[in-house]
């Protein structure tokens, strides 16, 4: 009898263990937030788990810096997560899981169109990432300061020079410390550079040294030297470290702030009723373009996962129209889903100001130049962003002349491309 009880217990334990192995598909999702994205994903993915018993999604909320610096090392070492929200879209392509066998590719083509290319590189032309958060760079202005100074806000289509002159006039009249600022980021200056004629992808491949790019860098350095642009942002840091100027704008110390759509929530929450602000999009350059830079983040799966089907199921769930629309509305992000963008998003709990700002950014999307779309999807763009920041900063602080900085950028880019596998 005792032996019978023992054998039955052992069998039951064995079945339980096997059932556990069969059902326990835990998918780890490395997520970072600009606002509340990870919280919202956690919420909607609980519904996914309810619909898909046996798959659990564990969300690891990490700082953005961890996505930039730790994730690539983890992936190279084979210890990465199953899913991540990434911004180096093409750069991590070699690690991506191809979702093609698991998804309705026609739906993805119809819904995500050109953004699918941002996740592709070389001969890997499958379906890798769902662009979850579309962003576009553009300018915020402190409308109250313009009003106090009695300076007219430049009209739509105004040039960078017009905005610089107007911002200087406003700063002078209102005793504001800084007329203009642009985030310390290679991505942020790419739109203005394109408007000054930078091709970025020249006949001989990627370039940071053509006449258009040089013209912009010269103008950018001159603006730093004559006090039009706040030195604190670009000269206050070393290396390629990111630095924004949002706090200066929020403190009312800045007239014109060139950043992007992801700052809208921060402005709404932190500026409040202190002053009126507006989104004015991207000014135009001498080359005729008025381009910002598209960007944002996307959800990708990784080839090294033990559960490719589960990973694809999670991403496909987030890509479905109703879920995507809900996430966009709750996180106040511009949608990359073409159907949702066309229908428009009613942002949940967004103030009239926030709604207007997001619509202004969305309205600027048609002005984005093809070079900007190419740059965003180029797998080596991280290297180009970093080189831009380092060398332009050196020109701003006087370590290099603009000509030397441009020559160094060309050398750095050649070296980076030679090193990239």
């Amino acid at each position: 009898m005792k032996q019978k009880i023992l054998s039955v217990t052992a069998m039951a334990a064995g079945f339980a263990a096997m059932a556990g192995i069969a059902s326990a598909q835990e998918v780890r999702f490395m997520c970072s937030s600009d606002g509340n994205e990870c919280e919202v994903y956690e919420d909607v993915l609980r519904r996914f788990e309810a619909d898909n018993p046996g798959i659990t999604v564990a969300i690891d909320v990490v700082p953005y810096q961890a996505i930039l610096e730790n994730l690539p090392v983890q992936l190279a070492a084979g210890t990465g997560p199953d899913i991540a929200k990434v911004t180096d879209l093409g750069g991590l392509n070699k690690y991506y899981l191809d979702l093609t066998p698991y998804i309705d590719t026609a739906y993805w083509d119809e819904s995500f169109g050109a953004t699918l290319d941002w996740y592709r590189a070389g001969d890997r032309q499958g379906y890798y990432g769902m662009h979850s958060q579309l962003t576009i760079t553009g300018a915020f202005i402190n409308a109250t300061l313009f009003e106090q100074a009695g300076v007219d806000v430049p009209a739509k289509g105004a040039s960078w020079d017009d905005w610089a002159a107007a911002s200087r006039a406003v700063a002078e009249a209102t005793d504001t410390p800084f007329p203009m600022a642009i985030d310390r980021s290679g991505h942020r200056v790419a739109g203005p550079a394109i408007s000054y004629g930078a091709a970025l992808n020249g006949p001989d491949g990627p370039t940071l040294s053509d006449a258009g790019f040089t013209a912009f860098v010269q103008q950018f350095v001159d603006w730093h030297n004559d006090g039009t642009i706040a030195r604190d942002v670009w000269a206050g840091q070393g290396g390629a470290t990111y630095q924004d100027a949002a706090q200066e704008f929020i403190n009312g110390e800045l007239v014109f702030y060139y950043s992007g759509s992801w700052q809208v929530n921060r402005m709404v929450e932190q500026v409040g009723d202190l002053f009126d602000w507006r989104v004015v999009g991207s000014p135009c350059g001498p080359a005729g373009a008025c381009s910002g830079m598209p960007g944002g983040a996307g959800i990708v799966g990784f080839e090294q996962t033990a559960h490719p089907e589960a990973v694809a199921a999670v991403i496909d769930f987030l890509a479905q129209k109703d879920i995507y629309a809900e996430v966009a509305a709750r996180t106040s992000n511009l949608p990359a889903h073409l159907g949702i963008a066309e229908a428009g998003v009613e942002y949940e709990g967004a103030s009239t100001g926030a709604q207007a700002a997001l619509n202004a950014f969305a309205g600027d999307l048609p002005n984005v130049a093809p070079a900007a779309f190419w740059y965003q999807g180029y797998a080596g763009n991280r290297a180009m962003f970093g080189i831009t920041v380092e060398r332009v900063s050196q020109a701003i602080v006087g370590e290099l002349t603009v000509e030397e900085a441009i020559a160094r950028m060309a050398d750095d880019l050649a070296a980076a491309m030679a090193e990239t596998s």
Partner: protein
Amino acid sequence: MLTIISPIMRIIEIPMLALQRVLGIHRFAWVFLLPNLILLCLFAFLPVILNVAYSMTSGDNILLEDRPYVGTDNFTRLTECSNHFDPNSCSEDKFWRAIWNTLWFVTLQVGFMVGFSLLTALILNREIRARGFFRSVFFFPVLLSPVVIALIWKWILQRDGVLNAFLDWTGVGGFNWLVDAEWAFAWTVFLTVWAHMGFYTLILLAGLQAIPRDVYEAALMDRARPWRIFWRITLPLLAPTMLVVLVLALIRSVQTFDEVFAFTGGGPGTATTFIIQYIYERGFAGAPRLFGMASAASLMVAGVLVVLTLVQLWVNRRNVDG
């Protein structure tokens, strides 16, 4: 306790005696050294070997087998200059900017560090009121995290920081300290001296207290002047301790990274980028990640540190030998 250990010892004794018989009494010592040797190999020698191997490869792959062998190309690129005093003439100008910044920094920081530490130790060695309190005050920054130190000074020195608020209040007017290359460098030297001098002060204080009092009493009886006592008694008898402090400060100074990275990020431009930050940025922060270049640069720094460490060992040995 003994009742627990004794049976264990008896169990171990049998195979150990057998092993001793096989290896012999002299070679048997290696058995006891083996656990430490394994750990040392894993965590010290293996990384050094890997570092050497990576320094001879290129590309952005992390796994050694995926990285193409390039021989000494990384070292050649790092050292290629038409004039080593002008970083702009070098292939890897940022490396040479970091080298020159580090040399200037080490010279100034170690000089000020040893000087101020000595001065502080001399004052704290006197019979002054609240001596214990002041000793704690000077040592307190040593206990702080480097990032905390950097943030405190950043809050003080930034454009709308405490110092500028004070200068505005006095009518002198503020200055953007951390955006100006020369000032940022000077404040970096100040910050690191402030943060670490407590440690060296403590060592020098111990050295001062080890000087026999009767030597001073004899000098006073001979009516020697304080300045002469300092030059002829204090300084010569403190010299061995000073050398230790000097070498320790030199090694620590070459390795400076954390406070400065959090304080200025290496800027403005590359004004406060030192060699360790250069290695970090090449290997981990930039794109593509140039592990080969970073490894080559780190080996060159390691060479300098080995020389400094040998000097310290030689100094220590000389002190012990009297």
